[in-house]
């Protein structure tokens, strides 16, 4: 928000800050790519927790990192078959 206002007023962002912001996003991706075994573990853990509450389709589950202006989001797409009775 603040950034976009600054942009409207034509104030240029310092390159040191731009480098830092780019790095933050970059390193999340690098570290995720570097360790597929950790992604696999995370996936298993998520499945375990969610399965307590609902029946999910593990095969079609997708887990990925996505960029959302200046931040990184972990996006999980988990098809739900049915809810468990609580």
């Amino acid at each position, binding site marked *: 928000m603040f950034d976009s206002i600054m942009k409207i007023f034509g104030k240029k962002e*310092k*390159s*040191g*800050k731009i*480098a*830092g912001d*780019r*790095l*933050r996003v*970059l*390193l999340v991706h*690098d*570290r995720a790519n*570097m*360790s597929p075994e950790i992604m696999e573990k995370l996936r298993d853990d998520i499945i375990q927790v969610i399965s307590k509450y609902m029946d999910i389709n593990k095969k079609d589950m997708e887990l990925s990192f996505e960029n959302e202006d200046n931040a990184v989001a972990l996006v999980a797409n988990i098809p739900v078959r049915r809810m468990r009775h609580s």
Partner: protein
Amino acid sequence: MSKVIVVTSGKGGVGKTTTSANIGMGLAMRGNSVVLIDTDTGLRNLDLLLGLENRILYDLVDVTEGRVPYRKALVAHKKYEKLLLLPTSQIRDKSAINPAQLMVLCDELRKNYDYVIIDCPAGIEQGFKTAIAAADMAIVVTMPEIAAVRDADKIIGELLRSEKNDIRLIVNRIRPSMVDQGEMMNMEEIQKHLELKCIGQIPDEQSVITAANIGEPVILNQDSYAGKAYANIVGRICGEEIPFLVVPKDGLLKRLKKAFGF
């Protein structure tokens, strides 16, 4: 208890060899016996920074392939005789030495010297794996530049996977005036990204280049900020608590001179 320290970075040109030379020299100046091993086979440079290029008779590959005992290949520094260089071959390549060979050699050296400093080649291939094999401590050198920090992060990941958990960070070639203007990442920011505590930052000074020109590591020049910064880093490696130097930025006069091209 002797210590094996590897100096690494991932990216080339950030100052691994300069850092190895200065840390080795600094430890020797404190009275320690130090062996500096150049593992950048095929692209050796550590001998040049120490001014020892004309004294080399045998090299690391001669030692690992059993042609000479290691003592015959060690080159003593002219001024600080406790500093010894084990140069590598300029004609062979990284495949000439494997991790097991370097581990055997380092175990031998541990018996007789206080420190073994290993100058690692750039990259994450076999040369890197060989260089880190025997290390108790790793020093990661980076620069306030996006590519260098990214590569440092990758190297830190590789080190942790190899169970090298004692990792220290050095930020080289900082330009205080650019940091001040917000045009360069500062040490705190780099520490935060890499999740490692920094043991020193070296200003990007002419003194480092002139030191290389004459083959005398800048740590010998205690009038320079780079030399002082390296001396402090050596102290921190030895476990001393030393406050960080404040490097003065270019004054108004100097900036004006630069602006007008004097």
